[in-house]
């Protein structure tokens, strides 16, 4: 695998921030309309940070590896929704999380 530890840290931080932005945007979407929605703005700002972190990570990491790792947002988002928002975690989602995780491991360490 290419890239320094700092760039890999940036890549995983971009995944965590992408998950956080999804949660914040979801919370913002539940708020009443008609007023300035600070929560939604915060969610968009987080997503902006994700785009910068992704570019920084790609300065030293292969595109193919970055894409594989970015799929972990599909794992992190439902888990974070379960833990932080108390939402139901469907069995199908749990299966998908395991499949994606297996795919990322095969992709990165499969040889």
């Amino acid at each position, binding site marked *: 695998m290419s890239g320094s530890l700092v760039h890999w840290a940036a890549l995983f931080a971009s995944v965590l921030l992408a998950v956080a932005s999804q949660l914040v945007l979801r919370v913002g979407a539940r708020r009443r309309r008609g007023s300035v929605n600070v929560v939604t703005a915060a969610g968009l700002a987080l997503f902006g940070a994700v785009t910068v972190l992704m570019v920084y990570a790609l*300065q030293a990491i*292969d595109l193919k590896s970055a894409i594989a790792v970015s*799929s972990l947002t599909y794992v992190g988002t439902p888990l974070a929704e379960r833990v932080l928002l108390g939402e139901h975690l469907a069995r199908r989602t749990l299966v998908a999380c395991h*499949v994606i995780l297996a795919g*990322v491991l*095969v*992709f*990165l360490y499969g040889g």
Partner: protein
Amino acid sequence: MTGPESRPGDLAGAAIGALAMAVLCRSLVFVFAKLAALGSEGGGLVAILWNPWYWAELGALAAQSGFWILVLRTTRLAVAYPTTALVYALNLAWAWALFGESVTPANLVGCGIIVVGVAIAATRAREPSP
């Protein structure tokens, strides 16, 4: 688009074109991000923000959102969303074709597993017929 066999919300007609564009734009987000990275290599935040490819990345994100809205006007989310998993396969092809990255059999298998996993995550159980 609606023949006697089709149901409202099924993927058909103009929605297919809009969905293809949404998937293409989503994959271009990563391509432009890589181009921005190559153009700002060794630089920090300012170098990234001043790189035109970074703004192309944001433009592709906006375009993807626009096409996605068009898709959702005629198609159920449960039908359209799983196809976004194709972004991962498309980007592996871009990485090989545009940036000369080597693609190993493990990459192909891993990507296939990811696509299946994302498709499962994005698919919701179909609503019962009324």
